[in-house]
């Protein structure tokens, strides 16, 4: 699994001088604010990397975004305001958790829909399977007579 990602990662290393995810100088003095910043940066995509959050990425751009995000938090923005600000700047591509909207409805609803559809199919299949047992044709008069005859023989 790590192969492609490793190769791509090394490409980004080539592009930007090897830096380091979350530098000590970025860390905010206020622990509560820093916790919020870390949580937020796990939700944001490093735009030049392959599916990495800016919290994990060592690219220069990720560092810029981390600093920008902390500046917004220091200025008193709420988490949502920070996200909105970054979306306005970089587009929805920056969010690792896409918002629920028309163009993502299928994505978000798929798990639930599939589970319900699967459960429905199972119930349907179980019903169909048990039907032949229920509709087993009743014995005809002839068969019943033969059965009685056999049982009489048995008891005698």
């Amino acid at each position, binding site marked *: 699994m790590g192969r492609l990602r490793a190769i791509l990662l090394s490409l980004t290393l080539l592009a930007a001088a090897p830096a380091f995810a979350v*530098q000590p100088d970025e860390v905010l003095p206020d622990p509560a604010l820093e916790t919020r910043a870390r949580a937020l940066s796990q939700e944001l995509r490093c735009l030049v990397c392959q599916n990495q959050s800016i919290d994990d990425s060592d690219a220069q751009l990720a560092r810029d975004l981390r600093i920008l995000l902390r500046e917004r938090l220091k200025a008193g923005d709420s988490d949502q305001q920070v996200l909105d600000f970054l979306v306005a700047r970089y587009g929805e591509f920056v969010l690792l958790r896409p918002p629920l909207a028309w163009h993502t409805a299928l994505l978000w609803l798929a798990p639930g829909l599939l589970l319900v559809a*699967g459960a429905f199919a199972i119930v349907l299949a179980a019903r169909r399977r048990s039907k032949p047992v229920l509709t087993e044709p009743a014995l005809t008069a002839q068969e019943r007579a033969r059965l009685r005859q056999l049982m009489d023989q048995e008891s005698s």
Partner: protein
Amino acid sequence: MIPEIGHYALVLAFALSLIQATVPMVGARNNDATLMGIAGTTALAQFLFVALSFAALIACYVTSDFSVVTTYENSHSAMPLIYKFTSAWGNHEGSMLLWVLILATFGALVALFGGNLPATLKAHVLAVQSWIAAAFFLFILLTSNPFARLPQAPLEGRDLNPLLQDLGLAVHPPLLYLGYVGFSISFSFAIAALIEGRIDAAWARWVRPWTLLAWMFLTVGIAMGSYWAYYELGWGGWWFWDPVENASLMPWLAGTALLHSALVMEKRNALKVWTLLLAILAFSLSLLGTFLVRSGVLTSVHAFATDPLRGVFILAILVFFIGGAFTLFAWRAPLLKQGGLFAPVSREGALVLNNLFLTTACATVLVGTLYPLALEALSGEKISVGAPFFDMTFWPLFVPLLVAMPFGPLLAWKRGDLLGVTQRLFGAFALALVGLAATFVTTGGPILAPFGIGLALFVISGAITDLIERSGIAQHRSVGLASRRLSGLPRSAWGGALAHLGLGITLFGIVCESNWATERIAAMKPNETISLRGYDLTFEGINPRRGPNYIEQVGTFIVRSGGDEIGRLQPSKRSFAARGTATSEAALLTRGVSQLYLSLGEAAADGGVTVRFYHKPLVLLIWLGAVVMFFGGLLSLTDRRLRIGAPKPAQPKAAALAQAAE
């Protein structure tokens, strides 16, 4: 000369695969034993030629023959021998050759150990296997020839990507491919059954060992890759929901579902059509994974379009096999008779529930992975679907599965007693509750954490309860009888319990790592000390060191606990001249199953350095659980009823004991 031999052997293997793909089919149609017998011979010959071809490729790398394009691009004469060896498959062309080598290996194994299969089934299975092989041989020969030569041999190679210069490359891709490609056997069995229009419990018994084998390798393959990423990428993450990871997780989920549904089919002759479908799905997802990784479509839809030949070729293979298999399925599956009725609350019912959740989870991962690609292709809108999405959607589907897991093996076939099983799980519930309460009281941490611990304990003790129940110690109160019954249990029963136990262990590790891992990021000067979770880390200094094909800056740190030195950590930053790239090598210190993890950042001019220091509590359990799952599978595989080769009827005494225990 060697590359040409390798290339020629590959062409011969392709020719053989064409024979194997057609002649046995004709033989099976006309019931001609000679023609059907060709399947086995060609499968072995095909394997020998692919092996020869692969050996030739290895020889090119080991001898640093830079007249070969791929060797020039991915190897270096100064690399240690082990990496010269592994760099053979550390690139597209070589890894595709490894892919077909493993495919041919499985074909040869069926030819060797499939003596107990009906002649037509064996012929069909090997023929289908060879269709896949033929398609991939053609792919390699036409678009990805690993033996292509340069007109003039350069003096030196361009080196292997430094991130891949690791033992992980020796272990991870072969294991992963053994899993991925192993599902081709289940696929071939499914297609053969559809062609013959006949499928029964015996079919399930033949398929199960192969599926199990593939599943075992995929399990450890994924775990190995996860551990590799954990220590190599330098920020201590072990699962990123990266599309490439998802590509290996999807076949695992489908394969796990297949193992369970094949169980129902073997024991109760039910779920036949569904089992067939899963066998097709598991390998289709493996093919999809190969396409995703190999076509470059993941980087972006546009990257795919700039070098389309490979991508389009694999896409064509994908469409042909998946489309063909599903068409055949839609056409022939309705002809198969369903058997084995069961009540909703029964072992079968539990396994159906297992399949529902596993396949839905698998579909969720599939949708999440492909949605951004599809959306961009259709509307041009770019969105990202990353870890936060998968965490939110995958776990709600997986948690119910884990809750239900201990119940399944305790339920009786046909009609189970849910209340009775709940009573028998009393011990497991109690343990889970104690764990939950203890976690809640001691940590008061994230609200979900205590529930995670409780669930993991429930799964672990549920698996143990399964074994205790089978020993019958509760009824007979005799340790001697209980141990006799346990040793008389079929190995597959032990294997199943062990696999469930392994999953519980992995879950425990995941919960601990994701809730209580702590980190310190700091700029350190020599002799400075930082503390984390009772461990003091002192920076000694940083020194240059020369490796075989790199120079590195090695930091030396001393770890103390309560004043006593418990170890040294030497993380480094390596720079590889050939590629002008650098890697960061993290240093790990294992304490029991927990780890201290240190990675090095920028070095300052004054001899200081930035570090990331992590404490990862019980993190090793994540991968040890996977190893336990592997051994559970191995134990099942040695079960006389499943053993690859000629299954003999169980001896009367053992059979009676086993029956008594079940």
